[in-house]
């Protein structure tokens, strides 16, 4: 199996290099036979990477510890589900997943283009895909192969870090990868459009689904990462502006900007160069993010070990950047548009401002992340900026972005009239003011929190108003009942309302972030059996202590009775676990979530006399962060469900 896997990898590399050679010959000699051969090579890469992945999966399932990678990330006691997912627990397997998924996506692109064999764009698209695949496959074959064997066969593997034995963590890396990888395809199309001088929006139309899909995966990946940090790391938060978190957040911001301006190019034919820049940036930032994580240049809580891959990624990044910029400069003249903005009070210009803010967020986050590197290069000392920097800089920008999200749907395309503005703004503005007044009366005094809630109400107001008006006017025209018209319209105009749902999701995440950051309370205490700890309106009573075995771990659990204002709500188990093969106990987080607030409990200490030490937090409104994230994903999915095919006569 080891040999089979290694050979499959080499074959995949050979085919991906073959793809490049054939296509280069094809476009230089303008010979369709070569391009066809290139296309076949590309599909063969898919087959070979699939075989290699199956081989590695088999090695994990069969406990083949003679393979170094398997021995490092798995052991006999590991549940079978985690044995499979240990596949991408480390770098080597991650790279294989990367190459495999990119190859699958490439095959899908080939399949989608099966009816247009002689399109001018596709050879170049396949060329870029083949090039990117060659890079990853070269790393796999020559630098860091997952099939590397040890000189001996250990009795057992080292096992999987208990922190990674969590369902959220299992799906977090692959979804992020899918997001990163997906952007390769729009990137390839953009390069192809520049090389061939195809100035229309066809590359945008063709790659729209890829863009949104990649964005969805990136979103899911980031949310799962937050979820994992929240329930597994036990410090009570979900986002720390860690370099690795930022590495995924920056491409997310730029791709969000791109999705918006792509709409403008489709509708109005402007911003062509700008879109090229954005898609290049998105792809480069995806690679750069991988580089940050994989090179060990920055101090981060995630340490994947400096494995010497950084240089390779930098080289790839350099080639892609130089190539992209060169092509952009070459084709700039052809892509320039005469269609300028007609009015600064138009939907186009709100999109433009949304882009400026998103890019400012991305820039500030990037700068803060790599600041130690910059300062060292300039002054010789490493100067770091911490969480406060990101919070100070990004919070006002985010609030501005939220305001634009609300304003945008209220303003018409091309030019808005004052009358239409007054009419559209009245209700949302009133709802925002009412919300602000009510919150102020209820005692919300933190200015930034108050502002965030007011803006959230405003945006939610605009979205609801727009939808209600459309449903009502439809009803007036067709006589259809509201209850049936509402969902039908949502479905019929899903591209538009999918977008609105994403915005609504954004509003809810803002509510969750604001509540949990501005109004969090924490407490800690040591309790003997029978004693209680109070936090906010909660009372936690230490009732019982148990110890038991489960799968590959020993669990120590303290039962806590929870009451609020004197009424008992139920019990919660605080746990510490000792995994087989682990030196350290792991703290488990116990949660009691309601729509109103989360009660968050960890047990960092167990005394020899049976006393327990608890660390407790109350995070108001946090559940809305996850609900909002989920809604963003649902909206995204809704927006890319393709329209029903019309029968062409």
């Amino acid at each position, binding site marked *: 199996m080891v040999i089979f896997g290694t050979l499959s990898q080499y074959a995949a590399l050979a085919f991906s290099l073959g793809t490049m050679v054939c296509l280069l010959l094809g476009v230089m000699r303008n010979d369709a036979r070569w391009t066809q051969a290139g296309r076949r090579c590309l599909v063969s890469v898919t087959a070979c990477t699939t075989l290699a992945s199956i081989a590695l999966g088999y090695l994990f399932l069969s406990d083949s510890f003679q393979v170094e990678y398997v021995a490092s990330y798995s052991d006999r006691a590991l549940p079978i589900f985690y044995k499979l997912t240990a596949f991408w627990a480390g770098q080597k397997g991650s790279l294989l997943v990367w190459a495999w998924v990119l190859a699958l996506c490439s095959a899908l692109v080939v399949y989608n283009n099966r009816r247009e064999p002689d399109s001018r764009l596709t050879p170049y698209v396949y060329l870029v895909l083949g090039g990117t695949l060659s890079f990853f496959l070269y790393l796999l074959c020559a630098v860091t192969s997952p099939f590397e064997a040890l000189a001996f066969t250990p009795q057992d593997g080292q096992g999987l870090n208990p922190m990674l034995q969590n369902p959220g963590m299992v799906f977090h890396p692959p979804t992020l990868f899918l997001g990163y990888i997906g952007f390769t395809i729009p990137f390839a199309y953009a390069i192809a459009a520049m090389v061939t001088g195809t100035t229309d929006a066809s590359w945008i139309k063709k790659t729209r689904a890829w863009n949104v899909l990649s964005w969805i995966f990136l979103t899911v990946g980031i949310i799962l990462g937050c979820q994992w940090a929240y329930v597994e790391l036990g410090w009570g938060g979900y986002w720390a502006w860690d370099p690795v978190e930022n590495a995924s957040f920056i491409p997310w911001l730029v791709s969000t900007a791109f999705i918006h301006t792509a709409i403008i190019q489709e509708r109005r034919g402007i911003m062509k160069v700008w879109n090229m820049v954005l898609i290049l940036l998105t792809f480069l930032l995806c690679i750069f993010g991988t580089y940050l994580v994989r090179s060990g240049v920055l101090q981060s*809580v995630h340490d994947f070990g400096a494995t010497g891959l950084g240089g390779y990624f930098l080289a790839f990044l350099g080639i892609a950047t130089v190539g992209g910029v060169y092509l952009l400069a070459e084709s700039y003249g052809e892509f320039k548009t005469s269609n300028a903005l007609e009015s600064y009070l138009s939907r186009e*210009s709100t999109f433009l*401002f949304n882009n400026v803010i998103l890019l400012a967020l991305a820039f500030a986050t990037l700068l803060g992340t790599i600041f130690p590197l910059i300062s060292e290069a300039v002054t010789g000392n490493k100067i770091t900026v911490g969480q406060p*920097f990101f919070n100070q*800089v990004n919070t006002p920008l985010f609030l501005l972005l939220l305001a634009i999200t609300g304003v945008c749907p209220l303003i018409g395309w091309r030019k808005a009239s004052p009358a239409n503005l007054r009419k559209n703004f009245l209700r949302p503005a009133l709802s925002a003011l009412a919300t602000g007044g009510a919150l102020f009366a209820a005692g919300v005094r933190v200015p930034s929190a108050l502002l965030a809630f007011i803006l959230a109400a405003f945006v939610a107001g605009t979205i609801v108003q727009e939808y209600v008006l459309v449903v009502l006017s439809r009803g007036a025209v067709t006589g259809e009942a509201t209850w049936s018209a509402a969902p039908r319209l949502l479905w019929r105009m899903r591209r538009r309302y999918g977008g609105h749902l994403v915005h609504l999701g954004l509003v809810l995440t803002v509510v969750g972030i604001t509540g949990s950051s501005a109004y969090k309370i924490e407490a800690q205490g040591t309790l003997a059996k029978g004693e209680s700890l109070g936090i906010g309106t909660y009372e936690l009573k230490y009732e019982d202590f148990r110890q038991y075995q489960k799968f590959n771990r020993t669990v120590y659990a303290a039962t806590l009775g929870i009451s609020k204002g004197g009424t008992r709500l139920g019990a919660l188990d605080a746990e510490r676990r000792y995994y087989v093969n682990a030196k350290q106990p792991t703290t488990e987080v116990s949660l009691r979530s309601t729509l109103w607030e989360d009660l968050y409990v960890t047990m960092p200490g167990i005394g020899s006399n049976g006393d327990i030490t608890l660390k407790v937090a109350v995070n108001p409104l946090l559940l809305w962060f996850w609900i909002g994230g989920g809604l963003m994903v649902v909206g995204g999915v809704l927006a890319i469900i393709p329209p029903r095919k019309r029968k062409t006569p």
Partner: protein
Amino acid sequence: MKKSTRKALAGVLVIAAGVGFLIYRGIATTSAYYLTVAELTGAVAGPRVAEGDYVRVGGEVVDGTIDYDQKDLVLRFALRDLEGSEQTVAVRYDGPKPDAFAPDIEVLAEGTFARAEGLFRAQNLLVKCPSKYQSEQEK
């Protein structure tokens, strides 16, 4: 250039200036030096840090120095220099011991250094979370 384009451009410039100011102020008020243990103790010349300045220090946890009070959640340990010098510094952190905290592991401590006591008071402790970990049997 049309009037509306000029207006839009002016708006973009205003925003860019605002962002620039935000970033500048953010850096000015929140930046902290990253020091090695040897730079902190003064064995090696490093950036000039005033007493009580918030700094970050990176090092390795010295085996046998970990003293964790489970009851009051106070963690004391010594950090060894990463660059191979023999310098160590005592650290006190008030909070729960992170799961991944262990001897010889790399730690990033944020806080202030009291030179007179030779004690680094950490307000934040970042532990590298290794995706790989060595099992007991390998010793």
